[in-house]
């Protein structure tokens, strides 16, 4: 049945066309022209479509290129920034090093300057001592000066510089023998150092006679040093009597502290 239907349709259609072709020659031409036109239009559309597609493709490619360029530029800028930061860091580091170097240099320079100033000051003090020796009609080569540190290093006993006496007594007590020996050894080892032995006494009675009593104490200590081999030029015994007390009380304790002889080295002053 179905097959019958399709057959009839084809007959109809064929018949129709046969009718048309049969109807006229011009009609066919027109149709051909039309078809050609249609074909041209179709081709034109296809061409246009192709052109459009091409343009779109090109646009996409251009955009892609621009995007790549942009990315490249950004990367470049990032790298440049990184470089700049790195360079800055290096420069900063160099500056710091330079600063430290300069600080160190300045510190060394300051040390050198201070050492030089100290040396100059010591020379000045030595020169002052030399002048004083000359003014005292003394040997100007006796300009050795010491520091407490130097004495301590040489022998801690050298820091013991006071020898105390009993009332109305002028003998050196046995306990002071090692101290006096230490001073004698130091003086023998340092022949340009000259010391003063300063005698003192308590403040009872005549101030002038007390000078003589203080002298007696200084003389005793001087004699002990000379006996141990210290050259005479290195020791001078003087007396301050009761004029330079270290204790002011009117009692036995104060008097005892003032009955003494002090060994005085020429010390560098700070």
């Amino acid at each position, binding site marked *: 049945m179905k097959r019958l239907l399709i057959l009839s349709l084809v007959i109809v259609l064929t018949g129709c066309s046969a009718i048309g072709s049969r109807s006229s020659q011009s009609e066919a031409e027109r149709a051909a022209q039309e078809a050609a036109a249609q074909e041209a239009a179709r081709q034109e559309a296809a061409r246009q479509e192709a052109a459009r597609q091409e343009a779109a493709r090109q646009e996409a490619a251009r955009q892609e290129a621009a995007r790549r360029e942009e990315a490249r530029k950004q990367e470049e800028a990032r790298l440049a920034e990184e470089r700049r930061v790195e360079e800055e860091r290096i420069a900063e580091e160099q500056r710091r090093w330079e600063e430290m170097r300069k600080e160190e240099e300045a510190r060394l320079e300051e040390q050198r300057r201070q050492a030089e100033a100290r040396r100059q000051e010591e020379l000045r003090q030595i020169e002052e001592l030399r002048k*004083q020796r000359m*003014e*005292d*009609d*003394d040997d100007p080569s006796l300009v050795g000066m010491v520091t407490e540190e130097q004495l301590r290093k040489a022998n801690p006993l050298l820091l013991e510089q006071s020898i105390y006496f009993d009332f109305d007594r002028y003998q050196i007590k046995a306990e002071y023998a090692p101290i006096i020996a230490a001073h004698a050894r130091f003086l023998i080892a340092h022949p340009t150092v000259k010391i*003063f032995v*300063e005698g003192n006494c308590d403040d*009872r*009675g*005549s*101030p*002038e*006679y007390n*000078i*003589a*009593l203080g*002298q*007696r104490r200084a*003389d005793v200590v001087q004699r002990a040093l000379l006996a141990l081999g210290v050259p005479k030029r290195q020791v*001078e*015994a*003087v*007396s*301050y*009597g009761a*004029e*330079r007390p270290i204790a002011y009380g009117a009692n036995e304790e104060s008097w005892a502290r003032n009955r003494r002889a002090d060994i*005085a080295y020429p010390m560098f002053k700070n």
Partner: protein
Amino acid sequence: MNRDIRSLIAVCALLLASLSGVARGQVSVEVVGGEGSRIPIAVLSFHGDEQVKEEQRIGQIIAADLMRSSALRVVEASGLGAGVDDKVDHEYFASMGTAMVVIGKVSRKDGAFVARYALVDVARQERVIEETMTEPPSSVRFLAHRIADRVHEQLTGYPGAYATRICYVSREGHKSEILIADADGYDRQVLYKTDSPIMSPQWSPDGTQLAYVSFERQRPRIYVHDITKGTRKVVSKFRGTNSAPAWSPDGKKLAVTLSKDGGSQIYVIDSSGGSERRLSDSRSRDTEPSFSPDGRHILFTSDRGGSPQIYRLAVDGSGRAERLTFDGRYNTSPKYAADGEWFAYVRMEDGRFSIAAQNIGDGEVRYLTSGQDDRSPAFSPNGKAILYATEVKGRGALAAISIDGSTRWGIATHAHDIRGVAWGPYESYRVEVAR
């Protein structure tokens, strides 16, 4: 400033007065004897005194001076005044118990002070002195002191040493000051100030210089300080200690104690410095030389006999040292009096130091003071009084006592600790202290 000092002086004088009884201005006087032989004298207010400040009133200054004489007794007459030309009522003054009266008048002429005064003998109704004295305006006290000296000389045969100056060293901690003041303690002036000890000031015979020991260097040295110029010079700086200077009477030499040859020995040097000669030669401690007024002897302290005693030695080197003191185990600091007969010294007994005097000729000894710590005696230029350092309530003070022990007075000083005193010669008053 000056006013403060004055008021403090007044306070000190009051303190001293409360200790000793009688006071007059700067000086407090204590009379302990000799009343019977003293000449009674009244000093009336001078006409013109009422117009000036108290410390410039001539009558009062003269009375205060004469109170320090061991030969006079000042009769209280402070309320009385008279002009120099007024007639003295002899009966009235005789009834007051005075034998002599000083009257006067002070006026100003061309800025200067002019005093006309008279010393009237009450019994004989006679003007023993009648004269005029003139002084520049700064020296009104000097004018009064000169009148007192004249009156004293007229009555006793020797001037009173009122118009003179004294010198002393005041110490506080490490600071020393050399001060020069009038003999009554007024017009104190600082001659020299230092941060190191100074001791043993001694006045040159012409009054213009002081010798002293200074410890400004490690080695004690002797300086001569020109008072008028304010300059000073080292005159003794030998190795060791240089101490205890004493002027020769002609001012050309100084006897000094040196340790340069070991120990303490006495030498004579030029007072301008240099050229020394050894005087004492002992193995003992010899010091504290004092020249005799004729320059031929020195007295000094030596422990050659085992304890400090006073010896005498001829300066020309002839003869041996002669021991003069035998009483006690401590006799030091001899000072010749102007007459060369007496010497003052410090003696110690039971731990107390006091002033004594001894006659060289007959050996008579006078114990003059009874202090705990009296020292550094110095004679007045007339040889009749001894100035010395003492202690009052733990502070240094100055006092003086007549050689007969009858009259003692304190002198306000403001000193903390006194390290040596000197009494200048008569010439010392005219010397202008350099500023």
